[in-house]
């Protein structure tokens, strides 16, 4: 089953669209897709052209393609458990919330909270991602628990906050406080990062670039070889009796 959703131009393109029903599962079950625009609830067809080709018998056969201006479309792929979603442009906040299976590919950039609290599946973002990429939510104690997220560009602040499982690969740089409160999983940052891994208690984080303003409460363990490169190995966060591993290629402490 191939589903193509083309968002039409809107008079006011800044009003967010809440589209938690855009998941392969909903199309497979032939549900009526309702979305929220501002304070009203409308069928998806009121905002986008919908083309459905072929039949699907299992979730794996459902492929969704989103075109047009989707930069304000929020919660696409929430609780998704299989199939694929491909987004040609940018996508709004909370893409792939709680997803447990399937694959989301974003050819543009993603807004904040990409893959928040995800438990499985795969997200690939070719552009940049906003704040709180692959993280937990306000007040939550556990963030991403499984699956994988790959961002080719850079990400905003608080990437992978509260992460407790899964794998994250960020090709660009991260903002402030990447991997704060990390409890598990593996995060690899190929660019630079700042104040990385504050309050971590477990898990592994690699920073291939420079770790600016390193948190002072990490115990230095020595230099190790990883991937043919030399890394400074730290353990911590000691302030939190943490036993997490932080590997950084270069680092500076706050002056």
């Amino acid at each position, binding site marked *: 089953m191939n589903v193509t959703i083309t968002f039409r131009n809107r008079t006011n393109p800044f009003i967010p669209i809440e589209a938690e029903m855009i998941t392969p599962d909903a199309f497979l079950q032939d549900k009526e897709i309702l979305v929220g625009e501002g304070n009203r609830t409308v069928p998806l067809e009121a905002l986008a052209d919908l083309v459905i080709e072929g039949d699907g018998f299992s979730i794996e056969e459902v492929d969704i393609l989103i075109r047009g201006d989707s930069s304000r479309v929020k919660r696409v792929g929430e609780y998704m458990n299989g199939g694929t979603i491909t987004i040609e442009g940018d996508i709004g906040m909370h893409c792939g919330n709680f997803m447990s299976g399937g694959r989301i590919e974003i050819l543009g950039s993603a807004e904040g909270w990409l893959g928040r609290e995800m438990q499985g599946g795969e997200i690939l973002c070719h552009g940049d991602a906003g704040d709180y990429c692959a993280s937990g939510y*306000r007040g939550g*104690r556990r963030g991403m628990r499984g699956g994988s997220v790959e961002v080719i560009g850079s990400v905003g602040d608080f990437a992978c906050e509260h992460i407790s499982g899964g794998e994250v690969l960020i090709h660009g740089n991260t903002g402030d406080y990447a991997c704060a409160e990390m409890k598990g999983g593996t995060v690899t940052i190929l660019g630079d990062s700042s104040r990385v891994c504050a309050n971590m208690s477990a898990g592994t984080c690699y920073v291939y670039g420079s770790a600016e303003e390193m948190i002072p409460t990490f115990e230095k363990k020595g230099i190790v070889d990883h991937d043919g490169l030399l890394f400074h190995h730290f353990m911590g966060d000691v302030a939190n009796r943490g036993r997490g591993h932080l590997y950084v290629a270069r680092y500076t402490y706050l002056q």
Partner: protein
Amino acid sequence: MAEILLKNAYVIDPISGINGELMDIAISGSRIVEEASQKAEVIDCQGYLTLPGGIDSHTHTSGTKVNFGRYMSPEDMRAGRTARRGPMHITSGYSVPTTYGNSYRYSALGYTTLIEGAMAPLEARHTHEEFKFTPLQDSFANTLFDGNWGMLRALEEGDITRAAAIIAWTLTAVKGFAIKLTNPGGTEAWGFGKNISCINEKIPTFDLTPADIIKGAIRANEMLHLPHSVHLHCNNLGTPGNYTCTIGTFDLVPDINDKRQSLYATHVQFHSYGGSGWGDFCSKSEPVARKVDFSPQIVIDMGQVMFGRTTTMTADGPMEFNLYRLHHDKWSNHDVELETGSGIIPVNYRKKNLVNSIMWAIGLELALLVKNPWQCLLTTDNPNGAPFVKYPEIIALLMSKQYRDAEFATIHPDTEKRVPLPALDRELNWHEIAVMTRAGQARALGIIDLGKGYLMPGAEADIAIYPIKTDEIDPSAEYEKVIAGFSRTEYTIKRGRVVSRRGDAIIDGENTTYWVKPKVPAVYDMQHDPAFIELFERYYTVRMSNYPVQEEYLHRNYCIETETDL
């Protein structure tokens, strides 16, 4: 005036001495009357259990502390969301829901009156504003005096009359209802980083012990003839071995009021711990319950703990700090200048945890061991022990030995050696439950004269009709039906209007805030007392003229004027 006739109501009304009679109840306007006219709207109760509207004598639903709990727990706001529906506003939150969330859910359980357990006088405005948006229940505010410098100074000088005058001025100014003491002396000491170990230890800033404060407050309370007694949260909450302190506190209480108790001790479950540390922590509900049995001047409430997530919030700042050291999670600490303090942390009571399992057992034991149900009221100290939505489960546990045994089998296996609960066979009946959830509260709070807690002509028409036919279900075996029945009323009637129908609020409602105004002779009017004015000008950051809560903040209200002995 609108009239309603309830037909075939199976009424249990302990205050009027009715224990299960099929009768009709006529309502005209906001009151219950002898007879309704032909025009009355008829509601057929089909023999369903009909009780006076529920009264929660100790709950935390409004005020700055509760609100801080809300905004430090965004994760709690993700639970329990309901959409806007008819006249119902959108709600969210589980242990610290929005005001409408509290109001709708209490109403679905048949509750029509709430007593906010602790209102800091300085922050009374916020509490009253939240009362206004808790529209389906009448509200009362217990006002904190545990660290009130004016009162403590007067007590230090041995001048009880002056202490009473200060209490009278403050209650009138902040539109409070009763005197609440939270860890008397301890919260004051916490302002200086200390705590008090028990009732006979001197507090660091005044030449007083908690015992002096409690005894002084009880006497001042009776001088002012306040409807309710002193409402006490004992010292040493939550520490192993604190039951001796609790019993010692109960020993201080004279029997000086004929109509009601002289001391209301709240959430006694948290004060009935034995052992010398967490290693040998055990239940001491038996000596505490026995003490209550021999002390008719004391009424307690359970403060039952139920398993699951919740948020603890209290004016007992030092205790919350100890909890923070156990949990290492979020913690809020707050000082209210010259008056009190507070602390908040989220907790998760778990069955796998031995201490939590023992706490769960102690609350039930207190309710089962105290012989007179009028002396042990049902609460969870919402949300400290559990959110109030657990009340139906607690009722079922108290009514069914079988349910208790089934639950007991799922908790920490070592609990058995530390608590007497498995040996208790008592199963409470419908009448006792009615006492513990409304009649007892009405008497303890001294609000029967206001028409609360009973169903005779003249009473306020606050009625809860539960879809329970007491002759058709056996509560000791069919506890699931008891839980379901108490979870959702068929009708909740508040001040003569049906406010909730099968769990849904059907009108906006408008509540009343009750407050007291003791009539103090001019000599004791603190408004013009030079020493009191000086205390204000010297220490408070607020001007005395800006301190009182203006009546605009109160919306609909009722002033209880009392004659005093000053």
